[in-house]
């Protein structure tokens, strides 16, 4: 059975697109046929991170409008032949996506792909709604700071009440926490929330902690998902995430247990 994964956060700039690219590549590298869709209509940058921006002919909106077939729009990744990218449109606005149209495309993709990764735009408006509506699993991308955690909590509320699964009274979307841009040093200094602080507020299954890393910038500059940089800490952290998602046991790395800002402000419990 195909699974639809939404990568979402509420807050902008926390690492959704970086994560979408990494996990789509990670799943594909494991031999699972995977498609990754850019839902950020008007601000496309998944294709940049995936290094296929110069091969975009048709996009998601063209397919929804019937101006191109799915096969014409899907771009095969240059590093992995199990991975396909469906880019967003740069020239339309977000109203170009219809709920019915998105559902139709996802249904078509499900016939052919094992995993479909939806890179959500920021916010809780229409684009983010459509990206999460049909999801089976949600990767909640959160930075270790209060406003990001709060927005993730808000998004979790939307997942549990507005998704297709919620509306149809089906088993709820499986929610996983991904803590990104984590810096143990700054946690130690009390400038950031610790893993425990975030877990205390969100109580979610922690899929992984991605450290703040220069390798992410290098990867996006060269248009290769950071998970392919196997020597980098962020690349390894994303590889762990994939392993855990697929049911393997991996100890958490790149975490410092020291108390963060939250612990200092409110005392330990």
């Amino acid at each position, binding site marked *: 059975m195909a699974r639809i994964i939404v990568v979402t956060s509420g807050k902008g700039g926390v690492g959704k697109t970086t994560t979408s690219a990494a996990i789509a590549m990670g799943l594909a590298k494991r031999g699972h046929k995977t498609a990754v869709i850019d839902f950020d209509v008007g601000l496309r940058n998944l294709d940049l991170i995936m290094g296929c921006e110069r091969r975009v002919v048709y996009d998601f909106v063209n397919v929804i409008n019937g101006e191109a077939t799915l096969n014409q729009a899907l771009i095969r990744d240059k590093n992995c032949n199990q991975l396909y990218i469906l880019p967003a449109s740069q020239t339309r606005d977000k109203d170009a996506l219809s709920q019915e149209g998105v559902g139709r495309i996802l249904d078509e993709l499900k016939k052919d792909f094992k995993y479909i990764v939806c890179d959500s735009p920021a916010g809780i408006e229409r684009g983010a709604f459509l990206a999460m509506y049909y999801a089976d699993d949600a990767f909640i991308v959160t930075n270790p700071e209060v406003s990001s955690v*709060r927005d993730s*909590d808000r998004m979790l*509320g939307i997942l549990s009440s507005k998704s297709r699964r919620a509306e149809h009274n*089906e*088993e*709820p979307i499986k929610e996983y926490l991904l803590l990104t841009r984590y810096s143990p040093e700054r946690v130690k200094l009390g400038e950031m929330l610790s893993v425990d602080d975030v877990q205390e507020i969100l109580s979610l299954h922690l899929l992984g902690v991605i450290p703040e890393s220069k390798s992410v910038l290098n990867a996006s500059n060269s248009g290769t998902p950071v998970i392919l940089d196997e020597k980098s800490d962020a690349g390894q952290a994303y590889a762990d995430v994939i392993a855990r998602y697929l049911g393997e046991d991996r100890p958490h790395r790149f975490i410092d247990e020291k108390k963060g800002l939250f612990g200092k402000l409110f005392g330990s419990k």
Partner: protein
Amino acid sequence: MPTDSQHSNYHPPALEFKSTTFSAPVLVLANNDVIIIEHQLQEKIQLAPEFFKNSPVVIDLQELNKQKLDIDINELVNMLHSLDFLPIGIRGATTQQLNKALDLSIPAHTGQNQALLIDNTKPQPAKPIPTAEDSASPERTTLIIQPIRSGQRIYAHGDLIVLAQVSAGAEILAEGNIHVYGSLRGRALAGVQGNIEARIFCSDLQAELISIAGTYKISEDLTEMVRNRPVQICLQNNTLTIKDL
């Protein structure tokens, strides 16, 4: 010739351990008289008989032990069983109490969190959040088992019982009492139709706002004495009073 042990390598795994977070009510005791506890528990059960039937419960003896009050574990557990509670853990206990509990197959729960860790391979699908229209009779108790997240709003015509956390930015309202068996970080308003007898009970008070029949306190008004503690909140002479549970 393949031996038996080689052969058994081909069996797919029959089990796996997974760890999930699981909420359960914590029974924080402030009195070591089992008769009195039984009496007060019966009153609570009256509020929501269906909900408490066969409910798991974690026994918390921290308060008692702070006051150097011992309690007969056997007697306590027997009483809980007679009321259809299923004790699944104990915390804040002395070594002696722990050993007695272990004899009764009740393990120690050392974590300080409200969330209880038990192995549970299939998490129960969460029920949808009931809305105002869902409650048929005005007296009915509304039970919520999943976290109430920021931006969500729950209205109960009768009492409201929440078995999980209420996030900052969430709002829960009830015409009757409110019970929260998790961290209360959002806004909680009981007796919203003017019932001055309504109360709020919670196991960890961190609320942004608490209100009974329109009389309210905001987060800033909560002293360190009551913050992060199990408390009950009621109206006394038109003032909101917060007492330790």
